C-alpha cells in the first residue's frame, strides 16, 4: 500500500495568500478569477502529484477553467478543493469534473453572499463609523477602516480555508448532501437580499424637483405625490429596472452605465431630475 499523501498547513497557507493577494489583480473579463485560483493551487499540486507530470498538467488545466466568487468567503471553496485534490491524489474515486462541479456550484451563491455582506454592508458600515472622525480632520478616520476591514476580512478568509479544508477532508460528501450547506446559503441569501433593500434605500437618492403650476394658483410638487404613493419610488424603480434589464438581456454593463449618464444629464437639463 502506497504512502498517504497529505497537505501540510504550509500549502493551505500558501493557497490562502496567493488567492487573497492576487484574486483581483489578474481578474479578466474572459475567465475572471481562474488564473489566480489556478496559481493558488500550484503548491498543493506540486506536492500531491509530485511523481506524475501528467496529473500536474491536468490539475493546472482543471483550475484554469472559469472561476469567480467573492474572495473573502470564497476561500472556503479553496479549502474544499484542496481537500478533494488530496483525496483524489490518494486514489479516491473523484473525477476532475466532480471537483469542477463543486467549485462551480458553490461559487455563485458565495459570490452573492459575499458581495452583499462583505462589500455592500460590512465595508460601508466600517467606513461610516469613522467618517465623523475623518470629517473632524482626524487621520485615524482613514487609517482605522483600512486596518479593521482588512483584518476582519482576512481573518474570515483564513478561518474558512482551514476550516473547510479540515471538514472537507473528513466528509465532503456528507457536508454537501445533508441540508446544512443549503441552509447556510439560504439564510445568507435572505440576509443579502434585506441588505440590498436597505442599502438601495439609503444610497440611491435620486428625486425629482419637478413642480407643475396648475391654472388657479395651486402648485403640484411631483415628488410629494410620488412620496405619497410610495416613498423612495424613484430609487426603487432605478434598482428594479436595472435588475430587470439584466435579467432579460444579461449584464450589458456599458449600455446600462451609458443610459444612466444620458438620463442624468438630460434629466438635469430638462429639470425633471
Amino acid at each position, binding site marked *: 500500500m502506497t504512502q498517504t499523501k497529505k497537505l501540510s498547513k504550509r500549502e493551505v497557507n500558501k493557497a490562502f495568500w496567493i488567492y487573497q493577494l492576487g484574486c483581483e489583480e489578474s481578474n479578466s473579463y474572459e475567465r475572471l478569477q481562474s488564473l489566480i485560483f489556478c496559481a493558488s493551487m500550484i503548491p498543493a499540486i506540486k506536492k500531491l502529484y509530485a511523481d506524475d507530470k501528467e496529473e500536474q498538467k491536468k490539475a*493546472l488545466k482543471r483550475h484554469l477553467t472559469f472561476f469567480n466568487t467573492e474572495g473573502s468567503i470564497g476561500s472556503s471553496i479553496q479549502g474544499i478543493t484542496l481537500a478533494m485534490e488530496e483525496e483524489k491524489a490518494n486514489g479516491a474515486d473523484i473525477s476532475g469534473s466532480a471537483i469542477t462541479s463543486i467549485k462551480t456550484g458553490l461559487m*455563485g451563491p458565495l459570490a452573492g453572499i459575499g458581495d452583499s455582506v462583505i462589500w455592500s454592508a460590512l465595508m460601508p*458600515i466600517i467606513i461610516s463609523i469613522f467618517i465623523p472622525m475623518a470629517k473632524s480632520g482626524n487621520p485615524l478616520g482613514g*487609517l482605522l477602516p483600512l486596518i479593521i476591514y482588512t483584518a476582519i476580512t482576512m481573518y474570515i478568509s483564513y478561518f474558512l480555508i482551514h476550516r473547510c479544508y479540515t471538514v472537507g477532508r473528513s466528509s465532503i460528501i456528507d457536508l454537501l448532501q445533508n441540508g446544512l450547506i443549503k441552509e447556510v446559503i439560504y439564510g445568507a441569501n435572505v440576509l443579502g*437580499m434585506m441588505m440590498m*433593500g436597505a442599502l438601495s434605500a439609503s444610497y440611491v437618492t435620486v428625486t425629482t424637483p419637478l413642480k407643475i403650476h396648475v391654472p388657479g394658483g395651486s402648485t403640484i410638487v411631483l415628488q410629494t405625490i410620488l412620496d405619497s404613493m410610495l416613498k*423612495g419610488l424613484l430609487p426603487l424603480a432605478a434598482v428594479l429596472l436595472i435588475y430587470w434589464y439584466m435579467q432579460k438581456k444579461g449584464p450589458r454593463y456599458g449600455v446600462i452605465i451609458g443610459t444612466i449618464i444620458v438620463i442624468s*444629464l438630460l434629466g438635469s437639463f430638462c429639470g425633471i431630475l
Partner: protein
Amino acid sequence: MNNTALAVVMGLYFWFANLRFGYTFSGMLKQPVCVALVVGLITGQMAQAMTIGAGIQLMFLGVTSTPGGNVPNDPALAATIAIPIAVTLNMNAPAAVALAVPFGILGVFLDQLRRTINAIWIHMADKDAEKLNYKGIYAAAFIYPALVGFLIRFPVVFAANYFGRGAVQALITAIPQWLMHGFEVMGSLLPALGFALTISVIGKKKLLPYFFIGFVAVVYFKAEIMAVAIIGVCIAYLVRKNANKEEAS
C-alpha cells in the same frame, strides 16, 4: 513637498490601489478617506485633506460592491485627482465633490480597459500550464498586470494633477449649473447599478420579498443599516430551514 512630487505620488498611489494587490486591503485603499490620509501626509494639510476626503467618501459609500468585478464608479480615480487639487486650491468640500464625480465615472472605463487587457495573461497561463511552467503562471498573475497597469494608470493621474490645477480652476467657473447637477444625479443613480448587480448575483427571485422588507424598513421606518443587518441575521437564522422546503416546491 512640491506639486510635481505630489503628482508623482498620486500617480503611484492610483496605480497601486487599482492594481488591487490584496483583495480587501486594496478595496479599502481605493476609498477617498484613505487617499485623503496620504494627501494630508504629503501636503501637511492633514485636517483639510481628511475633511474633503470624508465629503467625497459619502458619495461613494453606496458603490463599494463590485459584483463580477464591475465597479459602478471608481472612487480611487476620483479621489486621487479631486482631493489633492481641492486641498492645494483651497476648495470647499461641495466643490470638491462635484469635481470628483466625472472622474469617478471615467475610472469605470479605465477599469474596463484593465480587465480587457488582463485576458492576455490568462492565455499565457494556458500555455504555461501545458509546459508546467509554474513561474510563468505566477508572473502572469502578479507581474505582468502590474507592469502594464502602470502604463495605463500612472499617466492619467499624474497628468491630471500636474496640469490639472489650472484647467480645473477655469472649468469650475465655466461649467454650467445643469451639468454640475447632472453629475450629482449620476452620483445618486449609480449605486443602483451595484445593488441590481448584486441581486442578480444572489439570483433567487423568490427571496425578493426580503429586498422589499429591507427597503421599506429604511424608507418608512427610518431603520439604520445596522438595525437591518441584525434583524436580517436573526431572520436568516430563523428561516434557514425553509431552504429544503423551497427546493422541494
